[in-house]
């Protein structure tokens, strides 16, 4: 999809608008750092937050009420993780926290500090898709694709803990992720294909 070079994409707009970034460990460090309201007297409702996401450290200024998914999407610009229900009832926002699947809409960003967060963007290594991503493509495990990042992170977490789950264990491990398009048979095939590979 075109993130127009000259034009203002919605994503770019939201990113530029994000007030929280103090100095992410990225190129934009200095410019964004200057914008941070560091001179205000007393508490302006924001606190410094250090997040480790996909192996990188980000220093942010966030309101304590900011959920992890908002921090990831709106302050770090990693929009692969989706917000759907925003209340722990769909799985669209699933990320890994210390390799365990969690709903990032149900975590405060301040409380994600000190944990290793992995989002869908963190699975790609040097332009190479993760085996679980490849399996989703090969087994046609999606239709509209909106639930897919969450499904893949749930599957990743399941396989990290249990590399060769049985069908029953897969169904249970994936039970926290809804798919409105009902691509469940493909999702099951994708995860099963990796479980079989692990069994050799």
């Amino acid at each position, binding site marked *: 999809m075109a993130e127009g070079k000259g034009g203002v994409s919605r994503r770019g707009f939201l990113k530029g608008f994000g007030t929280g970034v103090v100095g992410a460990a990225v190129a934009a460090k200095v410019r964004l750092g200057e914008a941070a309201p560091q001179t205000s007297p007393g508490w302006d409702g924001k606190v410094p937050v250090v997040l480790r996401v996909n192996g990188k450290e980000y220093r942010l200024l966030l309101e*304590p009420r900011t959920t992890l998914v908002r921090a990831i999407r709106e302050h770090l610009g990693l929009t692969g993780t989706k917000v759907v229900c925003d209340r722990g009832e769909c799985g669209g926002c699933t990320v890994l926290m210390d390799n365990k699947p969690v709903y990032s809409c149900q975590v405060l960003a301040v409380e994600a500090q000190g944990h290793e967060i992995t989002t869908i963007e963190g699975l790609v290594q040097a332009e190479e898709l993760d085996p679980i991503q490849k399996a989703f493509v090969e087994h046609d495990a999606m239709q509209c694709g909106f639930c897919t990042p969450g499904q893949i992170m749930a599957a990743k977490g399941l396989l990290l803990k249990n590399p060769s789950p049985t069908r029953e264990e897969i169904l249970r491990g994936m039970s926290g992720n809804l798919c409105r398009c009902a691509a469940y048979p493909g999702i099951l095939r994708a995860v099963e294909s990796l479980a079989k590979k692990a069994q050799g």
Partner: protein
Amino acid sequence: MKNFEHVDARSLAEASRLLTEKPSVAIAGGQDLLCMMKDGLLEPARVVNLKSIPGLSRIVYDEAKGLSIGALVTLSELEEHPAVRQLYPAIAQAAGLVGSPQIRNLGTAGGNLCQKPRCWYYRGHFPCLRRGGDYCSAAAGQNRYHCILGGDPCYMVHPSDLAVPLVAFGARVEIAGPKGRRSVPLEEFYIPPRVDVTRETILRPGEVVTAIVVPPARGRISAFVKFAERGAWDFAVASVAVVVQKGEDGKLMGGRVVLGGVAPVPWLAPKASEALTGSELSEAAFGRIAELALEGAQPLAQNGYKVPLTKSLVRKALRMAVNA
């Protein structure tokens, strides 16, 4: 969600102080609390993180003292713990049936016991006695998921799955607060609506649950069954925990039958529990225990179905326990 001050408590004493200085709530896994706050049902000035207090996330099993579950143990940890699975299967089963894998990875044992009611009128800002309103919207409203036992004036059902087998095992809750520590049987931790319709637990300002202590298993067998409309994410329409001992004569000896999803508190069924002693392991005997468990049930307009449903769950739990 309104903004708030977020503080990591470093000790229980500090947590108690932080919780009483201004309108505050404690946060454990946040799986219930964040929903309450997003819906504007709780608007604390301060959120006190309990996860930063050392020593509250251990499971310790000791043959003489029993099982101690730290308040911050996650439901996944509880479900997977070898001693819990082997000696207290009903507890592992209940923990494993909460919400979804993601909720169990963060949700804690203490938070599960202290979670807020799920009555849709309570959550939906409708008139509700429990939230300080003039009347209970459920009494004459949409009440198919409401209670059939111990209601009046509030007909909500207690939402915790974990509390049901814990009461069945005779667990105690350990509490720390500004005035020191205390320990109460879990069934006395919950306040029936007739006693006080505005409070769910006996926790006083600044008090937190530190652990749940379950007496030694000592040959007791157990089972938990839950009926929900969906296989995941769903609260119990009804659930049953049975903890019992098999005697040498092939009959049952003392134990407890506890019902979930049918009363405003985890429902310890006294007559059914007494009837366990001396009961044969037959369908007919299990049927009698099921009848006693639901004695006195007073369904509302839409939830009569819960009576036969719960009876069948009692029989199923008994079969599961004795055949395990």
